[in-house]
């Protein structure tokens, strides 16, 4: 469902971009972008840009909800993300007002570019929110899994003392610890690195910084699922 919504949003965004381009290049304004545009074309362009800003403001409201609901988010990351979302909401609201008062096609086009390049809501802010929440969940899971491993080790020792064959349980526990360490290593410092990325006009440069973090979070998730499966296997090995 989310994919459908995103697909629709992308399609709308693409159409809007084309519409802004058409609106801004139509009529006399095309010859001189700084000259006052024909009333119809300028109004149409302003409507399109305003709608694009509104879409970003709605996304930021959704991020606020996600941040509020993220129980394992560290206080530092919560503070950074809350500040970022509040700042972007404030900036985009001001830009929306500015668009409404523009009198030239060039000014509306500049506002449209500012809306994208100065904020990067979809390309950068969304991954910052989602992936930081995910990375902090993974950090919490690593801590829980390490505690679990210590308790399972004690259970194995007790079973061994009672004469039980614990060979498989020990092997599963070793793998559990290894997977947990791999997850910890994968996400170390990734959220902070992502939060430090600044918006800008170079979309490819932003993508090249976001993609490794996204991959690390996904890799860590796989490791953590394996570690949890190992923990359950140890329990089964011990007949618990």
């Amino acid at each position, binding site marked *: 469902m989310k994919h459908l919504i995103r697909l629709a949003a992308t399609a709308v965004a693409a159409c809007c971009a084309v519409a802004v381009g058409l609106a801004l290049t139509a009529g006399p304004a095309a010859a001189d972008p700084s000259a006052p545009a024909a009333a119809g074309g300028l109004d149409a362009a302003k409507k399109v840009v305003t709608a694009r800003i509104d879409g970003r403001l709605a996304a930021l409201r959704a991020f606020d909800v996600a941040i509020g609901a993220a129980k394992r988010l560290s206080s530092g990351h919560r503070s950074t993300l809350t500040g970022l979302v509040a700042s972007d909401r404030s900036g985009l609201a001001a830009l929306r007002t500015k668009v409404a008062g523009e009198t030239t096609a060039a000014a509306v086009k500049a506002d449209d570019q500012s809306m994208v390049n100065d904020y990067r809501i979809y390309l950068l802010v969304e991954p910052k929110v*989602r992936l930081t929440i*995910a990375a902090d969940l993974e950090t919490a899971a690593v801590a829980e899994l390490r505690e679990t491993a210590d308790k399972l080790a004690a259970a194995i020792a007790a079973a061994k003392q009672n004469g039980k064959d614990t060979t498989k349980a020990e092997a599963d526990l070793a793998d559990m610890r290894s997977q947990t360490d791999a997850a910890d290593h994968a996400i170390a410092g990734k959220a902070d690195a992502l939060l430090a990325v600044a918006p800008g006009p170079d979309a490819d440069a932003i993508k090249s910084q976001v993609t490794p973090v996204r991959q690390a979070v996904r890799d860590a998730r796989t490791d953590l699922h394996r570690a949890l499966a190992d923990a359950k296997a140890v329990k089964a090995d011990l007949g618990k």
Partner: protein
Amino acid sequence: MKRTMAKVLAVGALCAVLLTGCGRGTDRRAGHDTSPATPPATSTTTGTAGGGAGTGTGGGTTGTGPTSADPQISSVDGLLTDLDNQVNSDSQPAQDAD
């Protein structure tokens, strides 16, 4: 005088007989009321004892029981469910997403 004394004694004897009779009657009724109550009391006691023994045997026979790691395992299960939801929310942006 002797006749008066004889009447008093006769009345006293009559009262004694009547009182004894009433007492026996009361005892009999009490006994009758108490008797049926005894079996249910015994039955309840027996039932409770049976339940307790059943629970104890079940736990001991299977040998199952929570380990001290169980709360952590449940907690990690919950964390990973939240994580899956979060990672799925971060859908790969489309090529032209800005």
